[in-house]
């Protein structure tokens, strides 16, 4: 990384564009933050049965992904779930 990059801040126009892109995907999918939170909690509940996961670092969001069948993009649920321990927990 060059020295100049340290001083280069992302322009506010680009920030606006990035924020909108994310926001509109969830707007269009008609998915409220409350619903996202419920999905997140359910995912945690299911995966926790089988492994120890880092619930703090867990991140889920709706993004756009290339579609194979139709010539555009479709919304996709993206989840990043860091695993702390693979071992089965005793029930």
């Amino acid at each position, binding site marked *: 990384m060059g020295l100049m990059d340290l001083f280069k801040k992302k*322009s*506010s*126009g*680009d920030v*606006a*564009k990035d*924020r*909108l*892109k994310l*926001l*509109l995907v969830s*707007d*269009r999918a008609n998915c409220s933050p409350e619903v996202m939170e419920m999905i997140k909690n359910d995912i945690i509940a299911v995966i926790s049965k089988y492994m120890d996961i880092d619930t703090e670092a867990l991140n889920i969001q709706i993004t756009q992904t290339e579609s194979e069948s139709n010539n555009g993009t479709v919304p996709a649920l993206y989840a990043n779930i860091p695993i702390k321990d693979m071992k089965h927990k005793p029930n």
Partner: protein
Amino acid sequence: MSEVIVITSGKGGVGKTTTTANVGTGLAQLNKKVVMIDTDIGLRNLDVVMGLENRIVYNLVDVIEGKCRLKQALIKDKKYPELCLLPSAQTRDKDAVTPEQMKELIEELRGEFDYILLDCPAGIEQGFKNAIAGADRALVVTTPEVSAVRDADRIIGLLEANEIGRIDLIVNRLRMDMVKRGDMMNVDDVTEILAVNLIGAVPDDEQIVVSTNQGEPLVGSSALAGQAYANISRRIIGEEVPFLDLEAKQGVFSKLKGLFGKN
């Protein structure tokens, strides 16, 4: 064949009424017969922007309630006799009219005019539903701000759900100085995000305020925004018009002409 166009945005204050006034006048300058309907019941504005506020006798609600004939409520423009305004009612509220009544009214106007422009109120409630009920196509107005673009996206979704045949985008109030330094989204950014056809980009122009003060639409003047609206009008009737270079500095001469208003 007449075409019914709704001008809408979702968010308030992005320039729907100014766009309606300028596109309506622009189409009249192209020798089209045009009627503009102010569908914002309770908050009428198109009449003042057009400078016709002193000529109102009857309004949209009077026509719908049968208190007058349609012809009696239509106000002829000061400059263009082929341009008419059907003003909104100031003292009533949105549910004085239903979508079915709007459709009937529009059918009655179709025979008489080439273009029927509907100035839509802000929001997505009853007034919006009334305004889009009889529309063939839509002009969605937005500014390059997150709130306006988000609302425009919602509106586009609703227009598509209501099977509006054609949706075109107008990006209004562009400040090229801010775009240049990266502090405002540019036209391509907004068009890419909303994924609809761009029909015009209008720069933020002081002359718009001046023309609204005077009650005379700016379209057709040498001011950059006036040129932009003239181009939009030509694209609406199907002409291919290249987009203006909004970054080009205006010459001293056209600035002077702008100062004196007329040209």
